[in-house]
């Protein structure tokens, strides 16, 4: 697909000019809740070309960043079993848990391997039947269908050495929690692109209908994001609150029904602990009873996980809710850098702190 039109400088400038010439007569705060948006906005320097009255906030859009310490500690505890080969997406490797990280565990000799897809983990399980292969499933609705597919295949193949540690989370209810949070000041949402490809637009309707908060589903090219911003500014100026699809080439209103069915077959909602926000009911996904055989939390009996410990001074929780900008965190670029991260927002490639650190000068002490 030729995406060059979505980077066309003329179209971009047209949108930038339109946004800058608007006169809403008030401050507007827009929040994106998708790690890819976080990076795209920072990498394209979009904040620098927005008007004074417009603030672009980053919310809890990085599934790695919102993984609670306890979940990371659990993955580590599972990895410490000598019979386990722990497989994970690369992004989880460097995230600090309460006492360690998967990178550290790997350096100390645990069998931890990076895979690019749960199907790779499945292939590994088939190839090494003497190992218990556990896949760490972290991600929003975008990645869940693939994990569901892997579990169904494992069942079909009769594999007894493949299991999943699900730390999946779903987005829409988390947005409701943000809207209800008195500390969070958001006027409208730039909604995630690929999550919406799966779930469509229905799950977001409550934002507009119950809370009068507009949302536009946006793609990832700079022009997609600029267009979404423009659509939101217009809605706010006109007093409308609707959920619109900006990312028309990637999202249909009903979403991907096949993927939704596959997920419903294998998973059911549960409560989930979001770093910085706390437990949000119904935003987690756990394996249904019929698939308990593939649930890593059930396969190994009691797993000894130490008491979670938060790191003093780490403000990831506030950064994830858009209450504190990354460079306002006292640890930013001092004790907490990509080389020596304190919290996940700095180490994840889609974390807000990492995006600010890499692509902006904000708050960095002079070289």
């Amino acid at each position: 697909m030729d995406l060059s039109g979505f980077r066309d400088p003329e179209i971009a400038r047209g949108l930038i000019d339109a946004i800058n010439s608007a006169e809403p007569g008030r401050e507007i705060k827009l929040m994106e809740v998708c790690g890819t948006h976080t990076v795209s906005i920072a990498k394209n320097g979009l904040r620098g070309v927005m008007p004074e009255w417009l603030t672009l906030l980053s919310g809890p859009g990085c599934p790695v960043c919102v993984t609670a310490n306890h979940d990371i500690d659990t993955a580590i505890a599972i990895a410490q079993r000598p019979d386990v080969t722990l497989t994970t997406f690369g992004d989880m490797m460097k995230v600090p848990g309460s006492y360690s990280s998967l990178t550290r565990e790997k350096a100390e000799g645990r069998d931890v391997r990076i895979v690019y897809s749960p199907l790779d983990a499945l292939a590994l399980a088939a190839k090494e039947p003497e190992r218990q292969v556990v896949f760490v499933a972290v991600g929003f609705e975008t990645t869940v269908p693939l994990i569901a597919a892997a579990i169904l295949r494992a069942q079909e193949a009769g594999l007894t050495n493949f299991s999943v540690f699900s730390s999946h989370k779903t987005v829409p209810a988390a947005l409701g929690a943000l809207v209800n949070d008195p500390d969070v000041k958001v006027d409208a949402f730039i909604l995630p692109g690929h999550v919406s490809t799966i779930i469509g637009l229905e799950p977001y309707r409550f934002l507009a209908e119950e809370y009068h908060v507009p949302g536009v589903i946006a793609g990832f090219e700079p022009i997609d994001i600029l267009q979404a911003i423009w659509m939101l500014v217009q809605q706010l100026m006109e007093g409308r609150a609707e959920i619109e699809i900006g990312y028309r080439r990637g999202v249909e209103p009903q979403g991907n029904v096949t993927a939704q069915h596959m997920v419903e077959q294998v998973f059911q909602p549960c409560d989930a602990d979001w770093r910085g926000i706390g437990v949000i009911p119904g935003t987690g996904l756990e394996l249904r009873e019929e698939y308990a055989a593939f649930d890593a939390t059930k396969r190994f009996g009691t797993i000894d996980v130490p008491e979670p410990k938060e790191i003093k001074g780490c403000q990831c929780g506030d950064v994830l809710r858009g209450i504190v900008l990354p460079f306002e965190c006292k640890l930013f670029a001092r004790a907490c850098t990509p080389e020596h991260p304190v919290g996940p927002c700095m180490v994840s490639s889609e974390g807000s702190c990492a995006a600010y650190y890499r692509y902006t000068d904000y708050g960095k002490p002079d070289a």
Partner: protein
Amino acid sequence: MRSDRILLAHGSGGTMMRELIDEVFVEEFAEDALKRLDDAASLEFSGDRLAFSTDTYVVNPIFFPGGDIGRLAVCGTVNDVATSGATPLYLSVGFVLEEGFLVEDLRTILHSMRDAAREAGVHIVTGDTKVVGKGHADGIFINTAGVGALPAGRDLSGSYCRPGDKVLLSGTLGDHGIAIVSIREGLEFSTDIQTDAAPLNALVAAVIEAAPDTRCFRDPTRGGMASTLNELAAASGVSITVDETLVPVDPQVRGASEMLGYDVFQVANEGKMIAIVPAEQADAALAAMKAAPYGDNAAIVGEVAESPSGKVYVRTAFGATRVMDMLVGEQLPRIC
């Protein structure tokens, strides 16, 4: 050679090592100095000063689209010597071979080295081989060291960049890194990206001739252009800004980088040069680069400013600015 695989005995200093040297190394390299098999090569030299560089090559996989570890080992050191403005002359080569390594693969690598050396006009004059037990080295590691002749008065340095200077790039970014990643297990997407590994001493010489006040050259290898420009900005105490629209990138490389979540400015190159040239000589330098081998896609991509000291920026297609940051740790793919 009776064995088709390298054995521990081939590194022992005895008759089997002799067999390896005579029938494989000397036969493939065919250099006069090498054939004498003295412990040290005595070489003619007529420069003012010596430029000297070394590098060790551990690339995995050892064979990749468009090249192999052998070609890299010669081009990499030739290029490092050339960046000082010296004419590369002689290379030494040291091998660590893993027990079980296929002799056929060794011959292929040596051919590549010989061909690259010939292309660069350098001679491989001395070498060493060790063999370690199975599992103690990843197939083959190669060290090359190179010497070159610096003419009197030639003084290039990364600390000489000045406000107003132009940044030149000799060709497309990211080809080598993406070529390597494209055949790593689990990432086989169909591209025909090849490594760009190439000797650039002729290109460097041509640019110096056309633009004698060139401040420095550097090849953007590991860490890519981002590391190189950040190093230069820090060494010279200047700021550098690159215009994204002027940087040549192969569309397949761009597509692959995005799919993997790589910043193409941080992807490794093995056949590209960055040159910092005073503004009034930039056009002449560019013309020389374009006419030189491997410089077809050369471009002026940015400029040097006084401040903020040590910072490197990218100007995007629609006029926004962001920082060009250095790579931290391993490049890891995205999660969703």
